[in-house]
């Protein structure tokens, strides 16, 4: 991978980490708040479905995870298993795309209903 790509990946991981810091806090606080008064899963979904704000929030959350995790995974593979090069890049990209696919599927369920 070129030097420029490496640097841009580092930048992407930093920015996605900043987004994740906010998203995780909002997500946890909301979850704790929601279950404190005994809301059921169905009642929570009733409040999120059709809410564009939550759709946008969780879409950003999933995007940040899908960018952050594979870049970190690629480094972990290199440093702990000494797995580097094209195959490790492809594997990490597949993990990232999988996270994006499953994550967005969950977001659509939270927004639009249906089976998660």
């Amino acid at each position: 991978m070129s030097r420029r790509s490496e640097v841009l990946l580092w930048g992407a991981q930093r920015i996605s980490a900043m987004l994740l810091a906010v998203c995780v806090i909002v997500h946890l606080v909301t979850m704790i708040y929601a279950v404190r008064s005994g809301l059921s899963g169905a009642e929570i979904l009733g409040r999120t479905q059709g809410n564009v704000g939550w759709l946008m929030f969780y879409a950003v959350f999933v995007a940040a995870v899908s960018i952050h995790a594979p870049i970190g995974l690629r480094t972990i593979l290199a440093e702990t298993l000494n797995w580097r090069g094209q195959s490790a890049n492809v594997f990490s990209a597949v993990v990232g795309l999988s996270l994006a696919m499953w994550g967005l599927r969950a977001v659509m369920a939270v927004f639009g209903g249906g089976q998660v």
Partner: protein
Amino acid sequence: MENLQVRIWRGKENGDFQEFEVPRQESQTVLDVVTYVQRKCDPTLSYRFACRVGVCGSCAMTVNGVSRWTCRTHVDKVAEDNKVEIAPLRNLPVIKDLVTDMSEFFDKWAKARGRFAGSTTRKAEFAQVSPESKERKRVDAGIECIGCGVCYSACDVVTWNKDYLGPAALNRAWTLINDVRDTERAERLAAVAGDAGCHACHTHLNCTERCPKGLSPTAGIAGLKRAVLAATLSGEI
């Protein structure tokens, strides 16, 4: 005082620890212990030292698992149950006993373009650099490195990634990036970018924790990361 039980690494990479008994003395340093062993117990023990007073940095070793200057480490402060284990620096090939081959450590300074490149001759006037300027303050924060290799030995990233330039070389590059007289900024930023450069640092702060000079290579590396990203985005490199 009871004799000190000392375990000292002998041989090369595949050597083993050898045990010695050394009489305790007041204000005894770990370097004193190694010197006693070499002079009184086994003259074939190899180790490096020069100044004995924390100026040259050549006596760095691993004492009870921690990279240190042995001349500035008192036995009182590191002995556990009256025992001390002394090994060569980590992350460097062992030549013999406590002596490491520091070639790759210094080669990486060269790879990080650790040499000043100016544009003037010796006939030119002295450059005027305000000690209050932002750049000069950054240089001051890192310039006292004497290349002892303690940070390189303490760094986990060097262990995991053999190409990683290491804290000392990157710290040197950072001081030159902030040297307003230097003319190779772009080349230097390019040299320290990427997987083997500043972006491999995980900010564990081992180098900062262990630096005997109290420097923070981590802070310099963080500055390099930002400078390289900015230079990449602007097309400078």
